[in-house]
């Protein structure tokens, strides 16, 4: 719709416009500390977030960054030590039991459904979200069709492959049509077809009903392709929150040089020493973030001189959200890029 068309639409009387809140979650100063024998571990260290209604919002961070702790507070299963969480304006900290009326949650572990078949898991979950028997059965049939669960819909979930289990649990999250879906690593173990089925199902609900999706991931590629906005978490803090494009613009002068050495590179070479100091090393694979000019120069030296003999492979890539994470002080090298 262009601006011109917009003016031609007659405004509806205010009373006929349903209250469509623009913000789903408003989080301020959220703090949660786990007491351990070795000392206090801050799992949420003063988190501020706004998640708009109808967007796909991501929480990206390495394992242990506090993503699941944050999510469990968002869905009212964990009480914060301090701070506030508002869900469509309602106080989640004071009234955690209102959350299931609005939010469907996909936990990381699906053992609760292991004895059920996907078919009965969908129907049972729909019933537990308040649907009548007939409506729950209709929902079951629609979801089996939509997510292509039919080939394994009547086998116990515990006996299915990891990907099939995940897809069935994802289906159960969709049952009962909640306006907010909180998904903790929904695509773990899924093959590319199943991943596409998941993203299409989410997109359909967003377009038709304006469903809000809060997605936990440690996969950078997933974050860059499906998220409207992303908060990057590290050690319980939000170190950045914006669209993936704007976040990447923070590091757009940089490129990433990936090197795979055939043998141990010569330790006395000055270029090798410089790169080694900056590299994240996984065995003989080095990953170095450099500004574009330095990267070009380094690559020239590497490919034009004697070091080329020791080099097995190299790639030069544009920056990713992982580079944003590292540039902003992220401390882990556990983010996935597949």
């Amino acid at each position, binding site marked *: 719709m262009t601006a011109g068309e917009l003016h031609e639409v007659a405004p509806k009387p205010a009373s006929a416009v349903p209250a469509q809140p623009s913000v789903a979650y408003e989080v301020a100063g959220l703090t949660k500390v786990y007491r351990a024998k070795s000392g206090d571990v801050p799992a949420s260290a003063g988190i501020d977030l706004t998640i708009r209604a109808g967007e796909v919002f991501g929480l990206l961070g390495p394992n242990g960054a506090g993503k699941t702790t944050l999510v*469990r507070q968002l*869905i009212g*299963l*964990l*009480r914060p030590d301090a701070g506030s969480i508002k869900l469509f304006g309602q106080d989640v900290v004071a009234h*955690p*039991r209102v*959350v*299931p*009326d*609005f*939010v*469907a*949650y996909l*936990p*990381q*572990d*699906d*053992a*609760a*459904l292991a*004895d*059920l*078949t996907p078919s*009965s*898991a969908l129907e*049972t*979950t729909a*019933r*537990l*979200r*308040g*649907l009548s028997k007939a409506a729950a059965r209709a929902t079951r049939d629609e979801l089996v069709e939509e997510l292509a669960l039919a080939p394994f819909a009547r086998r*116990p979930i*515990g006996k299915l492959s990891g990907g099939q289990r995940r897809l069935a649990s994802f289906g159960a999250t969709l049952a*009962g*049509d*909640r*306006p907010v879906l909180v998904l903790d690593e929904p695509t773990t173990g899924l093959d590319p077809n199943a991943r596409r089925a998941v993203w299409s199902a989410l997109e359909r609900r967003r377009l038709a*009903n304006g469903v809000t999706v809060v997605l936990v991931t440690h996969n950078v590629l997933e974050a860059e392709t499906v998220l409207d906005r992303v908060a990057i978490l590290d050690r319980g803090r939000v170190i950045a929150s914006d669209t993936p494009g704007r976040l990447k613009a923070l590091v757009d002068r940089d490129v990433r040089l990936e090197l795979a050495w055939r043998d141990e590179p010569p330790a006395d070479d000055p270029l090798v020493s410089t790169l080694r100091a900056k590299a994240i090393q996984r065995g003989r694979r080095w990953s170095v973030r450099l500004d574009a000019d330095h990267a070009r120069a380094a690559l020239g030296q590497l490919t034009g001189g004697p070091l080329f003999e020791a080099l097995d492979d190299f790639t030069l890539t544009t920056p990713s959200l992982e580079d944003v994470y590292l540039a902003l002080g992220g401390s882990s090298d556990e983010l996935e890029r597949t």
Partner: protein
Amino acid sequence: MTGARPSFAAAFGAVFTGQLARARAGAIPIFMAATVQSVGLVVLLKGLVDTSSDVTEQSVVAGSSVTVVSFVALNLLAQRFGALKASGALDYFGALPVSPAALITATAAAWASFTVPGSILVAVGGAAFYGLPMGAVWVIVPVVVLAGISLAGLGALLGLAAPRQEIATVAGQLGMAAVMFLGLVPAHRLPGVVQGVRAVVPSTYAVDAFAAALKSSPRWGTVGVDLGVCVGVCVLALAASAWAFRRAVTQR
């Protein structure tokens, strides 16, 4: 756009049906393990008990029947909830608009129902084996239902309250051993301290109700009072495990 909530009855029905899938998945092993053990007790103790005392024979049959219930409802359910808690899988239930009371009651009822075939088999078979009067053997039905729900409530409580999965497993097994020992041995043969323990173990009242029904002239007053105590224990056990469920989900 707010989602709906199920009524207590609808939530109970959905959870109960869902839990029955557990029975379908492991029906034969559960039935065999729970029942064979008690059949073994009935047969083995025939050679050991003082057959001149019908008090002892009734204790063996009643205690063995309730042991079937405790194996499944107390022991296996404690293990099940211990495992669900340890893996974080309780979050699935915690995030649904269902009251913990509906969830726990339906789970306990479903697991109690798993024990019905085995307990009835042991009760009827045991009474026949010892030549006890069969006129009031039907009392096993309310006994199994009430013992099943109360022991399942306690099993859920043990599994949910135990700090670690291994502790839940051991607690479930110790609980079952206590039910077996205190049920099989007639109260008057136990030392004073153990009699005190017997008086506070909920399965005692289920065992006593069934033993009183197996007498040549059943003592209906005792049956009624003991079953009444069982109802009270059910309510307490379910309330405690519903509280433990909420706590297990929110304090992880």
